[in-house]
């Protein structure tokens, strides 16, 4: 009796050990990757933020880098620009994506083709999309501005005028609406048709149906799009940088560096100032401080998202 129990428990513990090893084996790539390429660099970011480091000399300087953050006009400029994009670009993208998705649900013939057309710009490599866009809306030479000028509409000098640079980037972001649109379209199509039929019998008009049925059903997805949109916008880099380079008329003379964020710092986003400090000026310690600021803000929105996953019932 006793022997049997112990045999069973030995088998069970062996099985448990085997199970644990198997889990470890399957999980190992990620465990290593997470440690090496996330946990360690994150800790090192904190460490380096207390040093002056240009990859040649490492000098401890206490809180100097943190203090500099408060008097660095470029950093504040960048924070303001990134906030502008979060406040304007993200809601516009969600609204526009929702509008397009709604429109697509009403088109029967050719709907698939239209969906492909609206989705396509999202796939275009950002660098290529930006270079093309800057050219197309460039006054003087750009076809779009020229075409509209012929019918009397004069568009601004988007990427050379500090006031219009961020609206120009927003326009570019709306062109690449594909990702938001597809997710919202899928969720719209998931709203049970019977609900609309019932509402329609009750005499609800289109707006009431949208307000009472569509919106509540898709609101978790809307929320998801908005929060991921914010997190993406916090790392908004490529388009801003490429637009600045492509619209800056004079090719740089070799050897001279120009101030980032052309024109007049209007396109300087937070990741860009981080790039500039860390990889152009090589103030790597200070760049770490900027990275930590980005970490804290992005983490805040990630937590919102994680809570949402719970709402989705994703924690088994």
């Amino acid at each position, binding site marked *: 009796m006793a022997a049997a129990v112990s045999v069973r428990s030995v088998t069970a513990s062996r099985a448990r050990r085997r199970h644990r090893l198997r889990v470890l084996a399957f999980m190992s790539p990620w465990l290593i990757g997470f440690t090496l390429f996330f946990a360690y660099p994150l800790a090192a970011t904190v460490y380096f933020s207390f040093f002056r480091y240009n990859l040649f000399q490492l000098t401890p300087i206490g809180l100097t880098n943190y203090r500099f953050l408060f008097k660095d006009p470029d950093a504040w400029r960048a924070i303001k620009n990134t906030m502008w994009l979060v406040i304007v670009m993200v809601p516009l993208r969600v609204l526009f994506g929702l509008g397009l998705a709604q429109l697509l649900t009403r088109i029967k013939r050719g709907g698939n083709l239209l969906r492909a057309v609206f989705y396509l710009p999202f796939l275009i490599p950002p660098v290529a999309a930006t270079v093309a866009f800057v050219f197309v809306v460039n006054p003087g030479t750009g076809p779009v501005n020229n075409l509209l000028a012929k019918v009397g509409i004069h568009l601004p000098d988007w990427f050379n005028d500090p006031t219009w640079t961020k609206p120009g980037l927003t326009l570019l972001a709306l062109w690449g609406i594909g990702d938001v649109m597809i997710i919202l379209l899928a969720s719209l199509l998931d709203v049970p048709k019977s609900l609309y039929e019932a509402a329609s019998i009750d005499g609800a008009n289109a707006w009431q149906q949208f307000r009472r049925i569509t919106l509540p059903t898709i609101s978790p997805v809307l929320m998801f799009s908005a929060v991921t949109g914010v997190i993406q916008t916090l790392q908004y880099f490529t388009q801003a940088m490429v637009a600045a380079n492509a619209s800056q008329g*004079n090719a740089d003379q070799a050897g001279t560096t120009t101030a980032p964020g052309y024109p007049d710092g209007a396109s300087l986003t937070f990741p860009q100032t981080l790039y500039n400090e860390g990889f152009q000026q090589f103030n790597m310690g200070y760049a770490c401080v900027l990275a930590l600021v980005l970490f804290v803000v992005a983490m805040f929105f990630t937590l919102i998202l994680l809570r949402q996953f719970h709402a989705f019932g994703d924690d088994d």
Partner: protein
Amino acid sequence: MSPRPWRLITALAVTAAATACTAGNQTPADSGPKAEAPQTIEVWHGWSASHEVKAFEDAIAGFHKLHPNITVKLVKGQDDTKILNAIRSGNPPDVVSSFTTNNVGQFCSSGALQDLTPYLKKDKVDMAMFPKAVQDYTQYKGNRCTMPLLADDYALYSNKALMKGNQPPKTLSELTALAKKLTVRDPDGTIKVAGFLPSVTYYEHVPEHLAGPGFGATWLTPQGRANFATDPAFTKYLQWEKSLLDWYGYDNVKKFVHSMGQEFEASNPFEKGKVAMAIDGEWRTKFLQEEAPKVQYDTTPTPVDDARQSTYGGGFVTGTIIGIPRGAKHAQASWEFVKYLTTDTNALVTFANGLGNVPSTIPALASPNLDLPPQFKTFLDVFKNPNSTTIPSTINGGDFVVKFQSFVQDQWEPGKVPDLQKGLQGLDKKVNDSLQLAGG
């Protein structure tokens, strides 16, 4: 793309934790193969036009005869950012050269480029062969980490046909008057031919080429801090610049600048006859010869403020520098190359002739073999003139110049600075804060 990464993954795992604390390893000055061993050295430089690339190849023909064992691989079109990145990556080329002296402070103080003093001592190179100004801009606080490879200076080019018989101006008031007189505009204000474009966005009309030589502006205080608000010359320069700009109309100038061609191609507006007068470097003589041989032009020193007429004859002087990165794998062969190129009279003269640049040693400057267009003489004179100026080195390179340029371009020219003195004080603070962050 070797199997190296596989081995490295293991190494990576082991040492990742330790990497945070150690700085990059120092390369001892005489590591690597001896200069006599057969080897290939990689040389990065900034020239890109085809006549420039050819000039470099011609200049090192003599080196191949002297050191047949050393193959030289020239890589064109490099700039300081790429150079610094390569050095930081630990995989630098063997020799680097840069068009600007802006970053000498950074190159030397950080050790990115090796101190050449031991080599110079070993080979008993006499530094007296270089003019004083040239000796200065190639070192930082006694650390000589670069050598001068030809020099550049700036003067006023004037297109004879567009000048309509007027003599080139010597003072800034003459320049201003002529600029207005020679400008041709459409009724709507669009500039067809510009007399002289004051904007800093016009290629070489950057502040350092005008504020220093024209107005006598001093960039840094004796303590090495920004001097924009404290030196009235900057205010004077900015007011002159802005008043001429406003005469053209800011939007008209912007439009002109955005539609003009590329600086180093035949589409350059001076070469195209769209600009009557422009400050430019001596190399333009060569470009004009190559790309626009029909253009008749004069060169004269940079015009000066009316109150400073005694200083007329100088200009902005700078030069190309060349050095050996830390971590270069063939440092000794590299030194032989650098020594040959920067001290050999024949090499310098061939190179200067090919590029239309100013030679950087006294013997080469005096060489009868210098074969340059008559307009080039102005540049040789400016180079020797005691009133010529350059910009100082700081620990964060030309950061103060970049910040000043962006202040002028983005704030001042569009008219966004209500109180200039206050604006300049803000700029000074910004520059000083950055200097402090970089450890200056």
